């Protein structure tokens, strides 16, 4: 087990395995048959208290989809979900490699978490606003955002609608229901609650869906969000993506070694669901339930998506420095793409050959899109963004002091 030990009465939690250890997660139960029942979405919040400690699963490892959370999705919808996850992964691989070549300052993969973003987006309406973190690019891909333009954002080039003002992956796509991502973690949770309250005030039935990693649940903003969502019955979904790791800190640092982040919602009087985040059908089902509850006036649901971050936090860290190299492989919940693929093969809608062919096709597709995007510039060469734009959009109308500074900047040339 852990190589470091507490040598005083002060307790500091440590993850079970560090580099050099042989990870063994056989103690984590994978309750295939113990999925809690699906209550009516308008049930009392306390009827879901047990769900915060269980785990909603639909896909079994043999490819079967079982239980009363099994959503009614057509094979076309399932195939699109698979394709969106594969597209997300192919894009992540390409962009990570291009960062290594110096084309952009930074990148963040969502590998292993594609079912959370894609499955969630599939169950929302197009006019539901999402408040994502930096690892939900799958929402944009599911909603059909132009991938080349996403790449341009990462390249901070002439095709970037943000004109290089934000670091890579902190996208803003209002037209695809994707709120501007903040680099300050947790801050958007309460904003999403406010957005949802505005929907309710205007008598609209669209909802908001807000995201945090498990690490940032430790921020006060998480408490604000749950408290205000409860007080004002805000029509929103509060998603905690528990991918086990906050940069190098294991989940126990965020909240001690309790069982569940979903259970945080219980004390606020919110509905709570805990779902296998590597199971696209389960993510879809939980989201569909929570969205119906919010839309009908039942208030907010906290969903913990239990998953695993298969890669580093970003291009700036090496995960083998703080966890065993083979931990992602032995994580007991499998890979979200493989699991949906196995299901589609099980129901006769897919094959290994088709899967390999699609993987190749998407790799080429992403390569072509990237080439198109890079023509508009990159950070190691010319970005084709006029530096003068840095003075714009600080305010709606540029105040005099910024006009003077812009003039000073021009004089420097």
């Amino acid at each position, binding site marked *: 087990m852990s190589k470091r030990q507490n040598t005083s009465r002060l307790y500091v939690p440590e993850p079970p395995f560090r580099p050099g250890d042989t990870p063994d997660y056989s103690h984590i139960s994978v309750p295939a048959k113990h999925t809690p029942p699906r209550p009516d979405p308008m049930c009392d919040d306390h009827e879901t208290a047990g769900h915060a400690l269980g785990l909603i699963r639909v896909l079994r490892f043999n490819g079967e989809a079982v239980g009363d959370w099994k959503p009614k999705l057509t094979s076309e919808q399932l195939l699109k979900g698979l394709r969106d996850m594969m597209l997300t992964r192919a894009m992540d691989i390409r962009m990570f490699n291009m960062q290594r070549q110096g084309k952009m300052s930074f990148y963040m993969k969502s590998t292993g978490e594609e079912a959370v973003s894609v499955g969630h987006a599939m169950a929302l309406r197009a006019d539901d*606003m999402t408040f994502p973190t930096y690892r939900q690019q799958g929402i944009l891909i599911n909603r059909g955002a132009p991938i080349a333009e996403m790449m341009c954002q990462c390249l901070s080039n002439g095709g970037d609608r943000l*004109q290089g*003002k934000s670091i890579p992956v902190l996208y803003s796509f209002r037209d695809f229901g994707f709120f501007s991502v903040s680099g300050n973690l947790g801050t958007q949770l309460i904003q999403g609650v406010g957005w949802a309250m505005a929907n309710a*005030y205007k008598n609209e039935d669209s909802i908001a869906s807000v995201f945090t990693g498990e690490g940032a649940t430790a921020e006060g903003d998480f408490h604000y969000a749950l408290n*205000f969502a409860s007080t004002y019955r805000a029509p929103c979904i509060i998603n905690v993506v528990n991918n086990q790791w906050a940069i190098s800190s294991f989940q126990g640092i965020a909240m001690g070694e309790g069982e569940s982040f979903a259970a945080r919602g219980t004390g606020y009087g919110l509905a709570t669901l805990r779902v296998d985040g590597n199971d696209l059908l389960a993510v879809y089902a939980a989201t569909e339930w929570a969205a119906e509850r919010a839309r009908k006036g039942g208030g907010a649901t906290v969903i913990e998506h239990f998953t695993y971050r298969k890669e580093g936090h970003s291009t700036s860290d090496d995960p083998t420095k703080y966890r065993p190299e083979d931990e992602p492989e032995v994580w007991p919940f499998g890979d979200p793409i493989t699991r949906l693929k196995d299901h589609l093969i099980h129901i006769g809608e897919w094959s290994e050959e088709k899967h390999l062919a699609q993987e190749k096709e998407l790799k080429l597709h992403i390569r072509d899109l990237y080439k198109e995007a890079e023509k508009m510039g990159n950070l190691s060469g010319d970005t084709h963004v006029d530096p003068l734009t840095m003075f714009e959009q600080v305010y709606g109308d540029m105040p005099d002091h910024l006009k003077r500074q812009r003039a000073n900047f021009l004089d420097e040339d």
Partner: protein
Amino acid sequence: MSQSKSSDMNMIEAIRDAMDVKMSSDPNVLVFGEDVGYFGGVFRCTAGLQEKHGLHRCFDTPISEGGIVGMAVGMAANGLRPVAEIQFADYIYPGYDQIASEAARLRYRSNGEFTAPLTIRTPVGGGIYGGTTHSQSPEALFTHIAGLKTVIPSNPYDAKGLLISAIEDDDPVLFLEPKRLYNGPFDGEPHKASVSWAGHALGDVPSGEYRISLGKARVLREGEALTILAYGTMVWVAQAAVEATGVDAEIIDLRSLLPLDLETIVASVKKTGRAMVLHEATRTSGFGAELIAEIQEHCFYYLEAPLVRVTGWDTPYPHAQEWAYFPTKERVMREINDMMDAD
């Protein structure tokens, strides 16, 4: 909009009237904060608004400044015009991240896709025996934030016109209310009977909508000998000190700190050759430092004396020693006389 009628109002009534007028004309204007709903706010600024406009237009919030501002950011991004009250500026710090990192930067980081047109009202300043936690003037912590506007009225007329402009502004505005001026102008002599706004020219407030542009100072008194820059409570202390010394000073009420009316300031200092900056906030890195830097940059060759700032001391706001901390009329008079003797 008709401006034919006007009436005597104190600053509380003028601020309330601004919200009332905007709530009546724009269904997207919501007012909320701690105790602002049924009760009408600890300073009564929102009294009657819930009864008149409905529970969903003016309501109480949890004691959670970070939550109040964060909620307002989300509402504003979704098309509303929230007016949030922070009960005392001393309590605003839990909301600082939401103001500095979120409200002020949302437009920039989304390149205009999302904006945060919200107004945050909060009482500032001392003079009411509020001690360290009900007296602070944290304006300089906010004027340092790109993307935010910071406004501070000194009288009922300006308060209403500035607040209407703030609510209508497409960017976040911090609206600081000098609580010592709520009920009347304050001349910096703590032990004299207080004076009300009734009968004061700037307590005569028009009904209906009118606006005062954010970024335009008011020349309160014209003069040739010295320029005094002040805002909030210190405007009236400056006026009392100038009258008592008989020095022909020009007093400029900045009204808006960011954006700043540099044009009016520079024209005045070039004319008088002397400038004094007043604020109640602590001295080091206070807004006075910014004003002095701008003046020396733009007026250096016109200056006839060193620039002077009169401020609170660099201490927390003391309770029993409140008037020893406060830059009183007496202290300002002494500084004016010293400056004029410096020739």
